[in-house]
């Protein structure tokens, strides 16, 4: 069965989620992956969007984090201060699922500026919920398209702290959560090295060469001792994902 690199990325990300997870969902690719998980192997997963919706089960992917369907299909909808105080900071979330414009080898994220802060080349949207999602969730998954301008050697700005300069940097700042434990791209999956916390390739998606990963990574990327091949998407995973995307496209062109 033919599938795209993006479909492989979403499927691989969805598989990382478990039925028992309570997941704080970012918009875009994280939202697609989390809802694919819910519609396949993890029907009881609790999805939380920062607009305050807890246990939401949207039929189509929301364009924003606060589309009405998120509230209509949620178990409950709380205020935004309550969401960030009791649910996120209170330690109720097992996985935070984030995207970013720039990622470095230690899973730090930039969503603020390209160029200098005071005179940016590109002004990006900013931090939103990410800085505290990354410190308060038990662990963090990162998803992004694999490109040299995205996986960079040095971030222009650290919006969201991952493993900092590596090693025990999180612990030295008094952060008790695990931080980024998994990164998924359209080429591969990566885990942090247990000691250095540098992201290391754990599996290559079918047909992807090591040289392609090296060319599209802004730092000299390392490969784990036993690099697996990511299992390709199953027919069922692809059917569910494509149906979800088709429903979403239809819904968003209506006014």
């Amino acid at each position: 069965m033919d599938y795209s690199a993006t479909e492989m990325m979403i499927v691989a990300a969805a598989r990382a989620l478990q039925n028992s997870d309570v997941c704080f969902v970012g918009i875009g690719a994280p939202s697609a992956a989390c809802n694919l998980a819910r519609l396949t192997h993890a029907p009881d997963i609790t999805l939380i969007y920062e607009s305050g919706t807890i246990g939401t089960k949207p039929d189509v992917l929301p364009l924003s984090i606060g589309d009405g369907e998120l509230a209509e299909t949620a178990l409950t909808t709380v205020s935004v201060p309550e969401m960030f105080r009791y649910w996120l900071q209170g330690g109720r979330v097992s996985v935070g699922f984030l995207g970013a414009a720039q990622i470095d080898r230690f899973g730090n994220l930039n969503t603020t500026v390209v160029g200098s802060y005071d005179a940016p080349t590109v002004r990006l949207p900013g931090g939103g919920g990410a800085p505290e999602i990354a410190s308060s969730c038990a662990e963090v998954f990162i998803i992004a398209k694999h490109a040299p301008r995205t996986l960079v050697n040095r971030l222009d700005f650290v919006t969201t702290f991952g493993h900092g300069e590596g090693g025990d940097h999180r612990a030295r700042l008094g952060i008790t959560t695990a931080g980024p434990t998994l990164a998924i791209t359209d080429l591969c999956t990566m885990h942090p090295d247990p000691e250095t916390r540098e992201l290391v390739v754990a599996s290559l998606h079918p047909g992807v060469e090591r040289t392609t990963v090296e060319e599209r990574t802004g730092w000299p990327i390392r490969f784990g001792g036993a690099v697996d091949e990511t299992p390709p998407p199953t027919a069922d995973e692809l059917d569910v994902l494509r149906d979800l995307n088709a429903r979403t496209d239809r819904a968003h062109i209506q006014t």
Partner: protein
Amino acid sequence: MTGARILPLAEAVAEHVHDGDTAAFEGFTHLIPFAAAHEVIRQRRRDLTLVRMTPDLIYDQLIGMGCARKLVFSWGGNPGVGSLHRLRDAVEHGWPVALEVEEHSHAAMANAYAAGAAGLPFATFRGYLGSQLVDVNPNISFVTCPFTGERLAAVPALRPDVAVVHAQRADRAGNVLFEGIVGVQKEVVLASRRAIVTVEEIVDDLRPPSLNSVVLPSWTMSAVAEAPGGAHPSYAHGHYARDNAFYKAWDAIARDRHTFTAWMAEHVAGDDTQVDAR
């Protein structure tokens, strides 16, 4: 206690939004008070400090029309679509007016509104650890918990001069009901010195659907104005859905200065309104 006055929107804005004010138009994706912002644009308010977690299209329009000199925010994109081009043009090129930026995270702003509502001078929370936002925003600091020694983030309470929000309905005494994604609507009204609330409808009986519904008493607000459709292209749960097609179309409208000003002249400001470039 004096209750909110039920006023036409133009009078509510004229009376309660002044040049130079710190103004927070809130509504987290839902219930964004576009009609009130358009009235502010028509009345040509200037030098506003605009506070809002997600500037959204509403602040893209106010910034692009030259109403703001400063923005306090935490996420400034067009959700699911891309950039806010008028915000970017103001930050990157100073058009039509240079825009000072004070940038936070969502957790900081949500906590800062709650602190404002609670009458506290600052908010504290577990956050900002390792983020360079600390280096570029002097309004981010840290305090040490006197009981555990834990280092916690601190930001000043948000106390806007005026809050502007939208809701589903008010009764004739000016009590207001919010339903659905309630965001920071309650906190921003209680944190602000004055508050304007626009509603889809003013009714005889507020009909709160539950004993614990989100209701603000009339005496916590300055003015209530009926503005049916006043949250479009965002939405009012139970009345109309988010106009996602318009959010996508805005990308092309706002990308170019001339397309933007032509659209605003036709749909909001009237043909005689000019943008003041300074």
